[in-house]
Every structure is written in structure tokens, then in C-alpha cells.
């Protein structure tokens, strides 16, 4: 073996970024069974219990407007939850491990690109997985419920929300992944993830919270509210949703804000 056997003329930051992205997607395909299970179990159970079991046993939720079924209210929320959880699973949890006991991150950071770009790659890879998660939930929503969801799809809104929401989830995952120590993961679920998912306007449109004004105000800090309202605007606009401007603004501001926080946290963890 000569000392320089392979020339790597394209050793650019862009090639390194693409290589890291390929690696993350290879991990998804290597673990496709586990990926499907992790992605589908919660949406499947939510849809099954609320839109199959409840109607069958005569216990039920009412849709807030007109004759719409609860399925129609729930489906956008379930997609939003699936995307949010994917952001945690795909970015936060692996990062906590890589920073913690495996120190694998040390290797990723030696790739020839700036440290901030390694962090941004994590967001992009997580967003791709979030998009896949959203697409996987559609068949569930179509097949499982006793009463089908009445979708009135607005394609432009769906494309924009469908692309922005995974970035919000993934950026949140990066920020959490750089902040949380391995032994704090259960706490993260109790203190951050559960409140976000339960109070994320997933089981009801946000506007209906006008009956509880303080909760309506507080949940404006919850990114899942904008994700769920966004999917509602794109899929079931007849239910009613926040103004589109607010949704789009939040779905841009949140990923940027969390992204900045996450990249800063990432640099602090990696460089000393």
C-alpha cells in the first residue's frame, strides 16, 4: 500500500455532508423493521383506540363542528405526533447516546466539514425520517377507523406544511439531544415529550381552547400545536384552524430558533 493510494479530489464539505446523510439513511434501511415499529406503534394505537374501539363500544368523542367524525379531527393530530416523535427518535435519542457512552460523535465530527454543518446534517436526516413517518400514517388513517376521515386536501398547504413540520420536530430533537444526559432521558419524556404531545392540539383544534384561555395562551409555546394545526389546514380545513400566516410563521421560526440553539449546543458539546 503506497502512502497515498486513493486520491480524494472531491473531499469537499458538500460531499462530506452528503456522505453523512447517506450514512443516516443507511441506518434507517438497515434497521427498517425497528424503524417501522417505532414509527407506527403510537399512531396505530391512537387511531385504533379513539376511532375504532370508542365508536364500537358506544363511547366517544364528538367532533366540535357539524357532523364531522372524531376521526377527521384526530388524523391531522396523529400525523403531527408521529412526525414529532420521529424527531425525538431520529435525532435526540441517538445524539444522547453518541455524546454519552458511545462517543461515536467524535468520529462524525472528524469528517471534513465544519462542526455546525454536522449538526445541520442531523436536522436534515431527522426531517427526512419525519417526512417518511408522516407518509406512513396515511394508510393507517385510511384503513383503521370505523368511520373514515373526511379529508379535503389542500395540496399547496400540504406540501408546505409537510416539508416544514418535520424540520420543526427534527430541530427540537437536535436541541434536546445536545442538552440531555443519558440518565435524564426518562425525565425528558415526562417533562418535555408527554406535555408536548398531550397539549399539542392533537385531539382538538386549538381554537376550541377558548373555553380555557390560560391553556390556549400557554400552548402557543408548543411546536406541536402549529404542526397539528398545519396538517389540519392542509387535510381537514372544514374543522377550522389557526390563521395560515401564524402557522407558517411558527413553522419557520421554530425550526430556525431550535436549530440555532441546537447547533450552538452541539458545538459546545463537541469542541472544548
Amino acid at each position, binding site marked *: *500500500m*503506497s*502512502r*497515498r*493510494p*486513493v*486520491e*480524494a*479530489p*472531491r*473531499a*469537499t*464539505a458538500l*460531499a*462530506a455532508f*452528503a*456522505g*453523512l446523510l*447517506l*450514512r443516516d439513511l*443507511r*441506518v434507517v434501511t*438497515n*434497521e427498517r423493521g425497528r424503524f417501522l415499529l417505532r414509527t407506527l406503534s403510537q399512531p396505530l394505537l391512537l387511531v385504533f383506540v379513539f376511532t375504532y374501539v370508542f365508536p364500537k363500544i358506544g363511547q366517544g368523542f364528538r367532533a366540535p363542528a357539524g357532523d364531522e367524525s372524531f376521526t377527521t379531527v384526530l388524523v391531522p393530530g396523529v400525523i403531527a405526533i408521529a412526525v414529532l416523535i420521529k424527531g425525538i427518535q431520529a435525532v435526540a435519542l441517538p445524539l444522547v447516546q453518541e455524546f454519552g457512552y*458511545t*462517543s*461515536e*460523535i*467524535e*468520529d462524525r*465530527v*472528524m*469528517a*471534513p*466539514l*465544519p*462542526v455546525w454543518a454536522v449538526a445541520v446534517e442531523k436536522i436534515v436526516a431527522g426531517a427526512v425520517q419525519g417526512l417518511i413517518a408522516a407518509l406512513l400514517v396515511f394508510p393507517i388513517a385510511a384503513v383503521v377507523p370505523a368511520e373514515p376521515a373526511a379529508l379535503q386536501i389542500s395540496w399547496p398547504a400540504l406540501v408546505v406544511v409537510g416539508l416544514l413540520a418535520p424540520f420543526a420536530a427534527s430541530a427540537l430533537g437536535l436541541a434536546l439531544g445536545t442538552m440531555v444526559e443519558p440518565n435524564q432521558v426518562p425525565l425528558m419524556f415526562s417533562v418535555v415529550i408527554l406535555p408536548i404531545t398531550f397539549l399539542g392540539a392533537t385531539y382538538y383544534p386549538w381554537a376550541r381552547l377558548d373555553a380555557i384561555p390560560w391553556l390556549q395562551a400557554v400552548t402557543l409555546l408548543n411546536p406541536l400545536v402549529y404542526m397539528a394545526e398545519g396538517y389540519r389546514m392542509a387535510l381537514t380545513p372544514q374543522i377550522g384552524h389557526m390563521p395560515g400566516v401564524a402557522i407558517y410563521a411558527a413553522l419557520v421560526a421554530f425550526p430556525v430558533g431550535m436549530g440555532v440553539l441546537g447547533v450552538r449546543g452541539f458545538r459546545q458539546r*463537541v*469542541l*472544548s
Partner: protein
Amino acid sequence: MTGSAAAVDRRATAIEHRIATEGLTKVYPGGLRAVDGLDLRVRGGEIFGLLGPNGAGKTTTIGMLTTRVVPTGGVALVDGIDVSADPVAVKRRIGVVPQTNTLDRSLSVRENLLFHCRYFGMSGSQARARADELLGRFRLAERGDAKVETLSGGMAQRLMVARALAHAPAVLFLDEPTTGLDPQSRLALWELLGELHAEGQTILLTTHAMDEADRLCERVAIMDAGRILALGSPSELKRSLEAETIVTMQADGDLEVLAAALGDVPGVTSTDVHDGAVRAFAGRVAGLLPRLVLRAERAGTTVTDVSVTEPTLETVFIALTGKDLRE
């Protein structure tokens, strides 16, 4: 270093030295001065060792040279490039084997090499060819599809070295490469590093094992408390003790008195008390041993054991710092 003088110096060092530092310093927040004004030159093709106890600043030094630790003072050039000014260009030119296992546990052995090659800009087919070549050379071909968790310590270490070399780096860094390896894997790694050195690979490694530094390295910098105490080839460093023989004497009685007494014996250059014994550093003098024992008994002590050794890097370290490498 400032202005055009720095630029001139930089060009000069880039030609001769793969690694050049001047006054390189790291003070961590909180005030710990981990590396303190390090001046280092590593020539192309050289295998260079940083030897010192834990906490000497070796890992921080490697951290700065590999862009992971941000220097708080001084300059460090790797392959002529300033690590602070252009860390990405430095990363392109270095391969790093860190202290801990940082293999990608989500990928197979082959995929570890494959994706590393992709990070460094190779096409899919280039990366596959390179990964296969490395698997063969590092005797990992049969384990190509294995998960990295299933590798033994020695195999994991070989894979880490293979990965670090995959993009043909100008400098290979290894941080405590044999710590935690079984003796056989340790010898195998020494052999491998010897081969790489013979091929002209520039290597910088850290170690706290003096036999490792002695056997592997062309030049060694002995570090303690963030500073270089001595720098040279292992034989130069050992010669610097001005002793060809070290007589270690255990005896009943006052060892300080014994040390002083032995110091009078012709041929002895110095003595000290270390680890419950008196050591006499001496040139190669005929009849030294009987004279030392005779002198010891005349000083009123009873000699219980005598051993004669040649100086090692460890004795150099002890002579320089007054403490043991293992402390």
C-alpha cells in the same frame, strides 16, 4: 508569531514539518493550564511520541492538533495549515484514532470503512474498492459484515486504524493506542505501526508506556503538567542521564546516609532514594559493584538486594520530575 514573519515561517515549516507548534497553549475555563507553551516539530515520515503520565496534557495536545480542542494561545500547523484558521482543511489531511472506541455501532465493519470514505469525498465505487483493500490489509475481510460490537478489542482497534488511514491522511494521530489491549494485540499494533512508518506515514502517538515509546518512536517528547521536559530520540534521552548503569540497592539502615555514601564512590555520577531503595547512576566502570557494596557496609548498612539495569525512558522521566510515570 505575527505578520509576514509568521507567513515566512509557516511556509518553511510546511515544507519540513508535518506538525509545527509554537507556544501552543490551552487553558480550560476554570483556569486549568492543560498545555502550556508547547513548541513541537514533527518531520514528514517521522513516528513521534508524546510520553507522559495521565494529566500531562497529551490528549489535549492531540485535541488541538485534530481541531477538537480550541487553543487559547500560540499556533499549531498541521501539514502547513493553521488548525484554528482552517479546521476543515486540517481534518481533510489527518486520520485520528482516539482513546475510546468511536466505531459506528449502527453499521457493519465494512460499512464503517465505506461511509468514512464517502465522508472524504470518494464515489461509491472508489469507496467500495478502498474498503475491500483495507479489510484485506487489516485482516478483517472475514468479519466485513459483522456488527462492530462483536469485534474483539484488537480487531476493533485495527478497524479504527484502518478507518483513520482510509483517506490517506498526511498525519496519523493515535491517542493511547494500546491502552486496554491484550499483550498480543499490543504487539500486533506495534508491528502494524512499524510497517506504516516504513511506508513513510507520519505518525504522532501518545502513550504513558515507556517501553512503547522506546520501541516505536524515533523521537519522544516527555511531557508533564502541560510542558515538554525533554525531547529527543529514546537513546539521546537515555544518554542525557549521563549514566550507563543504574545500580539499585536495597538495604537495612538509613537510606539517605547510604545514598550520600555511595555518591563518593568513583564512577558514580549521582544517587537518589526512590521507592524504598537507593539508586546509583554510574558510567560503565570496572569493579563498580563490589566497591558499592563495600562502601555500603562501611556506611553501617546491610545490603539485602542489588540489581543492575540500564537507563530506560522511565528512569529519564523520574530523573526529570522526581515522580513515577504511573503516579
